[in-house]
């Protein structure tokens, strides 16, 4: 059973009088519980693909079934609900709210799903403990290192028990040691919490942490390989 199914997905951006195709006829299936890396050189269309998968953007043509639901027919508010309930994002630039403590940042998805205050705090604290930030819960982002900020972002992505985590170059702003720690954390979330993880990266070393690597070149899937650990 596929959690994610892409059929002939194309995406192009307007360029001058015509169109610039970025994604060309992408067909892809991802099952529940997989840890997939989407790998390719810069500008190959990885982020564009991830934005479509993450319901932040819509394809120009083709069909996207998320949990057997056709995304095309949904309104922007329905997409917001899907992002809230089914998807957690981790970005290269962390994208935490400034002047807002770690625990409040982690509470944010639950604010929009209407979880009550005490429950919100309890779950947020638990998520921060899960990512190893027990001691830093009430720090603000500017008081945390890059690795710690990314852990807060991961806690925010898992707190609402969303089954899918999308991570776009999550180690792009981190040094090697921290990158490895973050990748181990993803492996752990995949293994222990059974989260489906879709990782976007241009680095072979990082992609190797996943169980499957989908290579993208020029907006097309070139190789889809299993990783032997």
């Amino acid at each position, binding site marked *: 059973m596929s959690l994610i199914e892409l059929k002939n997905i194309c995406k192009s951006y307007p360029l001058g009088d015509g169109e610039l195709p970025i994604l060309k006829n992408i067909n892809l299936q991802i099952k529940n519980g997989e840890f997939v890396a989407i790998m390719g050189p810069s500008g190959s269309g990885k982020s564009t693909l991830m*934005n479509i998968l993450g319901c932040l953007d819509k394809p120009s043509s083709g069909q996207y079934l998320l949990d057997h639901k056709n995304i095309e027919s949904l309104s922007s*508010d329905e997409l917001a609900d899907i992002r809230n309930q089914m998807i957690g994002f981790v970005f290269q630039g962390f*994208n935490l*709210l400034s002047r807002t403590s770690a625990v409040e940042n982690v509470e944010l998805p639950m604010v929009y799903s*209407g979880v009550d205050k005490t429950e919100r705090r309890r779950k947020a604290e638990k998520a921060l403990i899960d990512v190893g930030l027990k001691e830093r819960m009430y720090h603000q982002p500017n008081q945390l290192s890059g690795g710690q900020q990314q852990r807060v972002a991961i806690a925010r992505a898992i707190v609402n028990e969303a089954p899918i985590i999308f991570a776009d170059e999550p180690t792009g702003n981190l040094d090697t040691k921290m990158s490895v720690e973050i990748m181990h954390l993803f492996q752990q979330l995949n293994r222990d919490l059974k989260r489906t993880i879709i990782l976007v990266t241009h680095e072979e070393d990082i992609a190797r942490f996943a169980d499957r690597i989908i290579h993208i070149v020029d907006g097309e899937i070139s190789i889809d390989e299993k990783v032997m650990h």
Partner: protein
Amino acid sequence: MKKHSIDISVIFNIAIRAIKANKMRSILTSLGIIIGVAAVIVMLAIGNGAQKSIQNEMKSMGANIMMIRSGVATSGGVRGGFGSQPTMKLSDGNAIEEKISKIKSAAPVLSEGAQIIYANTNWSTNITGTDNRYFEIKEWAIDYGRSFVETDVKNATKVAILGQTVVNELFGDVDPLNRTIRIKGVPFVVIGVLEKRGENGMGQDQDDAVFIPISTAQKKLMGVSFPDQVHMVMLQAIDSQSTYTSQDEIRALLRQRHNLGANKDDDFIIMNLTQMMEMMENSTKIMTILLGSIASISLLVGGIGIMNIMLVSVTERTREIGIRMAIGARSWDIRRQFLMESLVLSFIGGLIGVIIGIIGSFIISASGAMTTELSLFYVILPFSFSGLVGLFFGYFPAYKASLLNPINALRYE
């Protein structure tokens, strides 16, 4: 998928945090609302105060009084008034008193402001030419000395009766009786001093006045357009009912005396106390509305300030909006976050404005410049108006924020 209900307190906290993050900017933004609300409250209090004064003034005058002035009455109220063509005569008043049984007494009034001098002291006050009927109608007794006698009026003698304030200013401890004062250079002998009356309902000192015989005023002191001219006739009816029922008779008599043909308008205005009060209340009501509207404009300008700063805030926080959208905020969640922020901004401004407005009204009242009268309604009105302004001018920036595309918002530098 279930739709969540977000705590309003969460949104409120976000708004407070955003406002606190830019304290100075928030205060400057609210300044327009602060000034607007304070101005509206003060203006309404002044208008309200003026209305109250008029009511007090009228109450103190006695219910049976009527006035006839030169002028043209129109259906919309009173036009002309003091500046219009003079038409009333002393003999008009006498004829009314004589022929109309419902009228007990008719006092002529011809008055102007002038400077008076005693020895080397001078004082500016109001000079009224009249006769004893004036004091009778006003129930105003002589404190010492005498009132006018028949020969004073008949011979236009240069005698004067003074109010207490004039006595204090010109004579101090000196006995004013039989002393000579000069009014516009003309010598007058002081024959009497009136009892102290104090301020009237509008805060005017009634004792700051000088009275001379009507004939002297007409012939020797004031410029008149025709020999027997008066500015006004003050009437006393036999009862308050008659101040209404006598008006038709008076009108008929005056139209006949002024030779007005059937197609001519009245060249005089008859008003009883209630009508005078209504007229003055109307004009203060118009004043209140005018002042209030002018003040409301500053409230609107304040609203534009809020819109301006909210647009800045939305742009500054584009990335935050993108994060919130990616995490699952619906467009309405974003919209009401910014609406709440502008609402809080305008309510804070409104609250400070209310405080300043109330204090301002008290200061104006205490300084004696004007009477002010605060009412709960006139405080709540501008306060809630400020909230409305916040909602109205906050809506567009909030709407703009909610329409952002999450990807573009997340990419915003």
